């Protein structure tokens, strides 16, 4: 028991560190792919690191209307995301299970969102209110889908631990032919786009008040706080991508503690993540943002898929 916990702790820390290190890289890769699709050269894939470094070396302006919520939010957001990264298996099917299962993870993400949306309201700016109001609507209607996608996998593997689901799908190769995995994956991919302010839900680069959601919320942040907010949002995207690859298709994930297995684990993880980044970039370059009130339709589609996955998983 204690030994297991120790191993979980060590690998949880290593995997959390891995995720935190590669989070800006993934953003860089998505941006690079985007640029290539749009026939631009684009910035280097390590540009997000420079951005973070720049933000941390800048002074910040805090609104005089802001209360303590605005000031603590960057730290709490980052904390939530660090704990979340430790709970997700990355290259080995071990993670900090003793903290909790998927429900805890989903609610940790909710905590991040809760603080961010409150901080957006804190400065009294209408932009913040607008972004926050849209964000809570989108995430509320996506919440059942999140649960259904994960529940489909719970049904298949008979466990609610993230590492257990990874290991379960990995060990039972027959499960990979299970249709509900694929359906739930598509649905969870839509969730990933919605939760991380990507197309068609939000435009991550916009600063037009009619359309922005995520950017509107962090508009008042600057300097180090903005750096932390950006970094935690990037980490969140990485978490969702890691969930996508390691919950639904944990091919190549290490099931034993050996250098070769871990090397394969890391390589396959990066490979799959880059493939997903390509898909995201493809979507972003080939379609436009939806109208806000068209989004419930997308969420219905995602929910129907997820629910179908759950029903199929009973069979």
């Amino acid at each position, binding site marked *: 028991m204690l030994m297991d916990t120790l191993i979980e702790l060590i690998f949880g820390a290593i995997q959390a560190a891995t995720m935190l290190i590669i989070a800006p890289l993934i953003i860089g890769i998505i941006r690079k792919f985007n640029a290539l699709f749009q026939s631009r050269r684009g910035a280097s894939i390590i540009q997000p690191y420079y951005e973070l470094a720049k933000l941390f070396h800048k002074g910040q302006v805090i*609104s005089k209307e802001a209360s303590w919520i605005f000031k603590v939010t960057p730290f709490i957001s980052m904390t939530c995301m660090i704990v979340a990264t430790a709970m997700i298996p990355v290259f080995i099917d071990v993670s900090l299970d003793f*903290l909790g299962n998927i429900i805890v993870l989903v609610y940790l993400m909710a905590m991040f969102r809760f603080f961010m949306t409150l901080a957006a309201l804190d400065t009294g700016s209408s932009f913040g209110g607008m972004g926050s109001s849209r964000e809570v609507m989108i995430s509320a209607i996506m919440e059942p889908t999140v649960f259904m996608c994960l529940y489909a996998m719970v049904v298949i593997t008979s466990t609610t631990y993230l590492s257990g689901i990874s290991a379960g799908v990995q060990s039972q190769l027959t499960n990979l032919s299970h249709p509900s995995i694929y359906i739930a994956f598509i649905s969870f991919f839509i969730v990933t786009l919605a939760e991380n302010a990507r197309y068609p839900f939000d435009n991550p680069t916009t600063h037009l008040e009619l359309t922005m959601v995520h950017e509107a919320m962090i508009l008042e942040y600057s300097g180090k706080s903005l750096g*932390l907010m950006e970094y935690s949002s990037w980490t969140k995207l990485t978490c969702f991508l890691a969930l996508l690859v390691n919950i639904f298709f944990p091919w190549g994930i290490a099931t034993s503690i050996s250098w070769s297995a871990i090397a394969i684990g890391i390589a396959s993880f990066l490979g799959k993540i880059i493939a997903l980044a390509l898909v995201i970039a493809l979507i972003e370059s080939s379609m436009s943002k939806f109208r806000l009130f068209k989004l419930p339709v997308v969420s219905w589609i995602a929910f129907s898929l997820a629910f179908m996955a759950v029903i199929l998983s009973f069979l």
Partner: protein
Amino acid sequence: MYSWILFAGAIFFALAGAVISAILDKNPGACRKITYLFAIIASCFGIASAIAVLAGDEMGITLFATPSLGTLTFGTYALSMNGLGAFFMLVISLLVLVVSIYSIDYVQEYQGKYSTGLMGALYNLFFMTMALVITSSNCILFIIAWEGMSIVSFFLVVYERNKKESLMAGIVYVIMTHIGTACIIIAFLMMASISGSFDFSSFTQPAFKAALSPGMKDAIFILLLVGFGMKAGVVPLHVWLPMAHPQAPANVSALMSGVMIKTPIFMLIQVTFNFLGIGSGDVWWGIVIIIIGCISAILGVLYANVEQDMKRLLAYHSVENIGIIFIGLGAAVLFQALGLGEIAALALIGTLFHVLSHALFKGLLFLGAGSIQYATHTKNIEELGGLAKLMPKTSVYYFFGVMSIIALPPFNGFVSEWLIFQSLMLSVILTAIPAIQAFMAISIAILALSGGLAIACFVHTYGITFLALPRSEHARQAKEVPRLMHGSMAVLAISCLVTGLLSMFLISIFNVIVAPITGSSSIISGLNWIFMVPVVQNFAGFSPLLLCIVMLIILPLVYGISKFVGGKQKIEIADTWDCGTPINERNEYTATAFSNPINKVFTRVFRNKPRIEIIPSESPYIFKEKKYEANEKKLVIEKDFYEPLVRGIVKISQKMKKMQSGSISMYLIYIFIVLVLLLIFLR
């Protein structure tokens, strides 16, 4: 051994407090201190008696035995408390204790406007009747206590009797609660006619269960579900709740929402598990309860989202949380019927835990709403704002309540919802019936949706009330409330966190309480006190304490690293960017605007067609004026269920009016006809 003395002490002090409060009415200053002091003592006795019972000293007091009439006996008027009763007694007494401390300062708000002696007397009686409802073990005594509770709370609802809304709310409340009581009385009469006694103890006998035909059992269940559901405020029987709770003074709303609407939950558990007994044919009971719970959870939180009255918003959240409690209870009944005692026990533990959590956080939130009203004299959140700076303590404690109600780990609201989620998810492993598995999946989705919407709702409530700039003169002049008010809120805020962190300890107590009810205890293995591993190994686990510790380690690390990286940088305090204009309350985001996306997405629930009226002018092409009304609130239940119902009743009564001709000879003929009919059919 001593538990009954402690309980008698609680009743005595509450009664004495009520009498003294009425006597001291002329001297409000002394009245408010002495009255609530008595309530505090009474609730301490209540807590002590509950703890004594939980420690193994079951309580039973026989007041007096009544003579029997023929085959039917009225039984003995007795008060008894088992483990389950002790738990509810504990929750009630704890909340009364804290709320009484709060009330000492809070009732100053009413001093000089209304009689504080009356409120004090009713407040003490309210506690007493709730304690009696939990302990009565005879149908007739129970009905007396139940009615007493309803009537006392009715008077508290209409306490501000000069306000028209209060009276309206009071009337709706008293009518609906009596319809509920009528159902309960019918059900009890049916049960007593079978068992031959009005004693609750006669219902727990195997002979009673054997004599109960399945049809009869179902009929009794439905009647009691309607009767108790009315008081619990489940959709569609909830309409009184959002009217009555906001009208009562905040300390009373805290008790009504926090504990009064839990007494029917206690009775439902008693009735389904202990009296009627759950057999294998009663799977549909669980399904009905879960469906009711799901509908309440969703509609409650949706209605709360578009509400601008702070207390009514919280009342709608009570509907939502009662829904969640019903989902847990329904799951317990369902699993018990399927013979899966272990998850039934787990679901019941989740239910009881949510009863506790909801009492703590909803009590806290209502007290917070009371404090805001005390400081600003308004409960319309559109007029508030910026209170985080003006009332820093209240804002922090309220925030604890918010984190708890929206179920953020590691607060108690999360632990209880987590337990209910687990019991629903475990159905997939332990049952092999696809229909039930699919049904459970839908309930999981609905529970998740209500969770997401609750976050949306509380971002709007907390953000608009406490953050940004004050939106009115009321809010600008707010001051921190007196010490006892924020002090008692602090107690509840801390207990919201502590009950979450130490949930393992509480669960081990709940395990003992539910074991005799479900016949099996849910094995929660793992390292005790730290991990929670319900029923099946390797399925689920959670450790609120470790999660909290990990977060508390990482938080200062994040803070330290972000201070260190990049060195010390200048922090400037400046205006919020508002496109170059100075920011003021006119260009802030409003609560209505904030909830509008949800309002629009769930248009079918709110039935809100925006009304656009074009006012004609001379030219047919140029419209000078347009009237636009966005939020004509017509909630789905009110519009599609109650409006036709009321119209129908009015129509029938108008038809009946023709019979009432006013001439005595006609009435004599009616009496004669009825007499003849009775003689023919009921010889």
